[in-house]
C-alpha cells in the first residue's frame, strides 16, 4: 500500500534562481542539495511539514538531448507545463508578504470561492503556482 507522496518534481530553467524564488520569495525551505558528479539533487519543501519534497529539475543531459531540452524549456516559458497547488493560512496576509518580497507575477489576486480563497502566481520561469486557504466563504465574488 502506498502511504504518501514523497517527491514531486517540476522543471525549472535555472536551479539557483529557482531556489532563490521558492525559498526567499515563496517561503519554502531547502530540502536536499547534493551533488553527484555533474548532477545536483535539489529539493524544496513546505517548512516543518516532513512531507513531500519538490525536486527542482533542469531539462538537459543526461536525461534529455539538446533538442528535447530546448523544447521543454520553451514549454515551461509558455506556461504549458504542470504546476503546484499549496495550502496556506491567512492568504491575504501572504499576498501582501509576497508583494513586499518583490513578487509581481500574480495570475490572480486572492479570490473567494465556495471552498475557500485562492490566488495564482507564476514562478520566474512560467510554472503556475496556486495557493489556497480552505474554508467556507460567505460572500462569493467570482
Amino acid at each position: 500500500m502506498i502511504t504518501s507522496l514523497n517527491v514531486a518534481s517540476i522543471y525549472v530553467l535555472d536551479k539557483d534562481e529557482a531556489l532563490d524564488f521558492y525559498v526567499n520569495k515563496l517561503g519554502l525551505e531547502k530540502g536536499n542539495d547534493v551533488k553527484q558528479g555533474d548532477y545536483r539533487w535539489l529539493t524544496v519543501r513546505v517548512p516543518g511539514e516532513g512531507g513531500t519534497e519538490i525536486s527542482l529539475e533542469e531539462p538537459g543531459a543526461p536525461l534529455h538531448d539538446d533538442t528535447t531540452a530546448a523544447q521543454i524549456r520553451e514549454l515551461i516559458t509558455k506556461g504549458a507545463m504542470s504546476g503546484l497547488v499549496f495550502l496556506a493560512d491567512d492568504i491575504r496576509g501572504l499576498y501582501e508578504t509576497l508583494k513586499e518580497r518583490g513578487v509581481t507575477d500574480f495570475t490572480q489576486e486572492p479570490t473567494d470561492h465556495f471552498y475557500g480563497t485562492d490566488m495564482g502566481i507564476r514562478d520566474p520561469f512560467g510554472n503556475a503556482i496556486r495557493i489556497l486557504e480552505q474554508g467556507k466563504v460567505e460572500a462569493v465574488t467570482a
Partner: protein
Amino acid sequence: MSREVEESNRHLLRARDAMDRAYAEPLDVRAVAAVAHVSEAHFSRSFRAAFGETPHRYLQRRRVERAMFLLRETERSVTDVCFDVGFTSLGTFSRTFREIVGETPSGYRAAPPPIEAPNCFQMAAMRPRVAAGVARRSSSFGEAAATAAP
C-alpha cells in the same frame, strides 16, 4: 536562439496572464503589448505564433468563460454580465458569446449546470475552445480584423 525564444515566450505569457487577470478592464492591444515589451504589430504576430490564436481572440475567450461562470452562478442580468466581463456593447457580447459557445447567453443560462470542481480546474476545463475556421472580426479591443486560422 533558443534563449531568445524562451525570453519572448515568458514576456508573452506575462501579457497573457495580464489578460486573464484584468479581463474586466478596458484592455487594448497596445497596453497588453506593453506588458510583453514589444510593439503592437509584433505582439499580435508573436502571440499567435506562441499560443495559436490572436491576443484579441484569447481575451474574448477569457471574457466569455467568465460570462459563462456569472450566468451559471449568479442572478445577474445578461446586460450586467456583459459589462462585468469587460465588453462595452451588448451586441458584440451576444454575437461573440454565440460564436464561441454556440448558443445565446440566456440559452446557456437555461442549460443544466456542470460539475463542481475547484475554481482553477473549472476555469481551465470550462474555457471555450478555439473555434477553428470561425471568421474573426474587429472589435473594441482595437485589433485589426485578422484572417482565419491557417
